[in-house]
């Protein structure tokens, strides 16, 4: 890791601030300095959103876990329950795995309406059914009023990896093509538009969706040519490409005009001073694939309902500083960087 990526935390007097949860460099630094140091093992060290490992009885499994603290808990296009399924299913699917089983752990604030809890659980059940996974174990905790905000959900998931597939964030090579599965920024803008302190109305729905079906089609189309996949959640496409550049020790060059962004999302971002490339997605993926398989892969993605707007947006290049560079629609060049600090807290 370069020095600019990793910084020392002040463990004596420092405190956690909101930037440590924002998915940017500050969070990467927190994970490096505190969690990796404490837990250190070779699987964690891979730095993926899931761990992939051989099982004692043969074959490979993946495992992942995620906490959901989204505010508001009901938002246009989804709720905390469906999101808690989609996010975890997607983290498994990004390793090329077939997601199988999920756990669900609820931390509920005293006074939370039972009707809302039922609505969330039903939505969660429906999302699991649609994604073809079972929620097979769970836990329920209640904390005093004021000690949580409504409900927080944590899910873990396991899945199995088809033979011959070894997707990982460190597999991108110069010359590989970068593909996104659809429009960027929908989830973040949908959440933002429903926050009470922003009186801003759009028809934008969150893209929250389980991507395992799309991934299955992609694996069938590109097989071993597929290097890696990742879902650009917090920090958006910009954070994901920067993470991947560092993990794979390459640079990326992307072309702004090729990145699908909905007009309403672009307009909302314009008004709010956000860059859609920094805004979270919950139903999109970034894939890096060998150049020779890229066109066929995009074709296959476009025939899946969750990949109709799939596009090749650029390629991996040699770059010892791991820059993500973009040719702007205007014709100039610029870096696409991690966002510093907090953009939208509690987006997922």
């Amino acid at each position, binding site marked *: 890791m370069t020095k600019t990526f990793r910084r020392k935390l*002040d463990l004596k007097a420092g405190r956690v601030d909101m930037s440590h949860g924002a998915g*940017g*460099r500050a969070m990467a630094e927190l994970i490096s300095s505190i969690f990796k140091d404490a837990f250190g093992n070779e699987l964690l060290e891979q730095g993926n959103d899931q761990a992939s490992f051989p099982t004692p009885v043969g074959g490979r499994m993946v495992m992942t876990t995620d906490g959901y603290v989204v505010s508001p808990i009901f938002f246009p296009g989804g709720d905390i329950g469906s999101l808690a399924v989609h996010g975890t299913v997607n983290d498994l699917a990004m390793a090329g795995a077939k997601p199988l089983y999920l756990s669900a752990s609820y931390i509920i604030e005293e006074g939370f309406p039972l009707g809302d809890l039922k609505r969330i659980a039903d939505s969660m059940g429906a999302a699991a059914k649609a994604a073809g996974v079972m929620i097979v174990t769970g836990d329920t905790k209640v904390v005093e009023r004021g000690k949580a905000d409504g409900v927080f959900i944590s899910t873990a998931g396991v899945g199995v990896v088809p033979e011959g597939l070894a997707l990982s964030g460190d597999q991108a090579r110069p010359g590989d093509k970068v593909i996104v599965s659809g429009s960027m920024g929908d989830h973040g803008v949908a959440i933002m538009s429903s926050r009470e302190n922003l009186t801003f109305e759009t028809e934008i729905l969150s893209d929250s969706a389980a991507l395992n079906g799309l991934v299955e089609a992609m694996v069938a189309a590109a097989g071993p040519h597929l290097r890696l996949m990742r879902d650009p959640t917090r920090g958006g496409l910009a954070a994901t490409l920067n993470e991947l550049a560092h993990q794979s020790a390459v640079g990326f060059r992307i072309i702004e005009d090729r990145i699908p962004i909905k007009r309403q999302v672009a307009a909302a971002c314009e008004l709010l001073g956000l860059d859609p490339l920094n805004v979270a997605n919950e139903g999109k993926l970034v894939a890096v694939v060998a150049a020779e398989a890229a066109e066929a892969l995009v074709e296959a993605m476009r025939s899946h309902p969750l990949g109709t707007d799939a596009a090749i947006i650029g390629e991996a290049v040699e770059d010892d*500083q791991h*820059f993500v560079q973009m040719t702007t629609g205007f014709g100039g*060049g*610029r870096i696409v*960087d991690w966002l*510093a*600090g907090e953009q939208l807290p509690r987006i997922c």
Partner: protein
Amino acid sequence: MKYVDEYRDGDKARDLAAVIAAEVHPDRSYAFMEFCGGHTHAISRYGIEDLLPKNVRMIHGPGCPVCVLPIGRIDDAIRLAKRSEVTLCTYADLMRVPASGGLSLMKAKAAGSDIRMVYSSLDAIRIAETNPDRQVVFFAIGFETTTPPTAVALKTAEAKGLKNFSIYCNHVLTPVAMRAILEMPPTPDEPPIAIEGFVGPSHVSAIIGMDPYRVFARDYHKPVVISGFEPLDVMYSILMLVRQVNEQRAEVENQYIRAVKTEGNRVAIDLCDEVFELRDSFEWRGLGAVPKSALKLRDAYAFYDAEKRFAVETQPAEDNPACECGAILRGQKKPADCRLFGTVCTPETPTGACMVSSEGACAAHWTYGRFRTRQTDAGLRRSA
């Protein structure tokens, strides 16, 4: 997006770049200052530098309200926020500005102070209304563009009879700062600034009009072009400056005719005159104390003045001596000239304010343009 995309059109940009390239004299160089951080941001974000001839240099000016606010004023805000009865409302940009003692508003918030990020001065009014037992202080910063909204907030508070609302006023003035830059004496280790013209901020002129800039054309023979913030606006304004220089003219021209009127916005000007008056002097990061360069609340509105309500006395605070924000804000140095740039000073751990705001010259270069100084960066990292 209608009325936006038209001004970001790549084909038109290439056409305009060709016109600029054809009109600049190859045997001389051109140096213009874009005063405003919004323009700096646009230039970096859209890669405008790549479209300009090599002999046209853009100098990034001090027009970033977050960047020019001295540390002492942030310290004041933190002291206010630490008071148990105070809720401090601030624009998000200010949260991470480094203050004395390794503090920032964000760290003060993590340590328990009640600090809220707002998008508008009226959000602060709403917070005051819904929290009658809290003293809500609005941390007002910005140039002439954000001054009228602060005045509106004050008048709204007055009309609603809100007793728990006050303003910590840090509004500053564009033309005064421009003059300070032109009047600045060169120092032994910093070259004089050879600014040949200014790209002027159109949102400021939407309020104050064009007349306050006439002095630069008349007394300093510096052309000023009031420019919009879309990339084609900026490029066209640069072309207008090139033409003035080539024709040895010095005039105040308006590129942003779709919103800026010569006389500005009379209603906004009158409202600000009613509420604010000039401070005798105000400390600017990079420029030092500049007489009559900032606003405070008039005595008639002293009730709403947080400096009076909480007896704020700003203590001077030293910048990090290695930080080049001052020279960068004056246009005498470029971000990559600072040895902290990209080593200890990055947007995550900013040392100077130019690295904090997205409109700051250092943040813009780091976030969008540092691939251009790749060698320098690598050299700096190796030596650090």
